[in-house]
């Protein structure tokens, strides 16, 4: 009866002197997985504008219906989203928008740290989605 108790003490003492496996979160971070789906971003075209052609496929495929698009045509007759709103507070990060996109305009990013005090800040517009590209080199 005594030997197992002493063995237990030996095990815990061994662990006591081993190095903790904790990652000290705000200071050090574990990089997200290769296929991690974080906050979306827009890919830019040569003119520095969005590649999005406002086809509306992402809006249709989105399960939580967090994408809203209004379509317009520019002077060259090219379609672009005059309004593109992605409500990040409702997004479930399923990645369907990225899969559905025929022109590879929207992508799931790697960023997962986003906290705001107000809800309306989570409403991502075209500009905000283009800015988000900076977080995903």
């Amino acid at each position, binding site marked *: 009866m005594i030997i197992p108790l002493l063995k*237990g*003490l030996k095990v*815990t003492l061994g662990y*006591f002197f*081993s190095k903790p496996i*904790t990652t000290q979160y705000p200071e050090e971070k574990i990089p997200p997985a290769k296929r991690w789906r974080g906050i979306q971003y827009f890919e830019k075209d040569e003119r520095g504008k969005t590649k999005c052609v406002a086809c509306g496929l992402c809006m249709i495929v989105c399960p939580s219906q967090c994408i809203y698009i209004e379509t317009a045509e520019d002077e060259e007759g090219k379609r672009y989203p005059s309004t593109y709103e992605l409500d990040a507070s409702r997004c479930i990060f399923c990645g369907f928008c990225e899969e559905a996109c025929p022109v590879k305009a929207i992508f799931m990013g790697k960023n997962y740290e986003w906290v705001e005090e107000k809800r309306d800040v989570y409403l991502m517009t075209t500009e905000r989605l283009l800015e988000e590209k900076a977080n995903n080199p």
Partner: protein
Amino acid sequence: MELLYLLIELIVKCVVVFAGLMIVVAYLTWLERKVLGHIQVRMGPNRCGPYGLLQPFSDAVKAFFKEDLIPERADKAVFVISPMICIIAAISIFAVIPFGNQFTIPGTNWVVKLRLADIDVGLLYIFGIASLGEYGIVLGGWSSGNKFGLAGSLRAAAQMISYEVALGLSIIGVIILSQSLRLTEIVSAQAGGFWNWNVWYQPVAFVLYIICGLAEINRTPFDMPEAESELACGFNIEYSSMKFALFFMAEYAHMVTMGALAVTLFWGGWQPPHPALGFIPGFIWFCIKLFVFLFFFIWQRGTYPRLRYDQIMKFGWKVLLPLTLVNLLITALIVALKG
């Protein structure tokens, strides 16, 4: 004039011992969390100051500012008094612990003895006060008007009765060997190196003392009164704010006292482990030995699971009590035969 000096000495000693004990208690909570953390391969508190060293103060501030709730169906007077009973009992035990030899204040011939009270029934006093502390737990659980609290306090009462017997009997061997209840004499009887310590003459009693001591201070694996998993904190379930903190402090102060008593009775108190090491003050030796015990108390908490209630009772009455009796008989027989 002599009397005035004596009074000043006493007050200074009281304040120093009280402050020291409180600091030890505060940092014991830090040590416990840190050691448990490292045993579980995590960091433990490390956000408040370097290595989390300011954590106890942060906890104290938090405890002060928490809302102090008294349940409507509680017996209010008893509810308020019971944490006080706990902390007072836990602190006043320390009055008779000799934590060092004596020294002369430089420039005078005034001898300061490093103990608050050197009474000739020291051990009796300790056990009396320690059992008094259990009233705090029993009354606290009962008066909070909560079923879990009541169950916790009933368990505390049963456990105290079962283990106090074995605890008292386990140290009688030491008393037989040193022929005294006075703690300073028990320490003096162990002078002259570690081979004279009682732990070598009373190894069984030492182990039994540690086990019963753990049960007495309601510590894992015997923390029945506050079993988190089944009683949701047991006797202190309705306590919040500083009242809870008092229970907490009492528990840790009691732990320090149990460790200090183990050092005094079995590990030669302030005596150095070898006469050649006598140049280091006895107080330092006392602290080192005490630290070993405190570390062990925390270490075993990180190791052992809680016993089931009936197992604890069975273990107390059917294993510990017979063992202590046999140990006592053998010790008495040997001492009698040696003359």
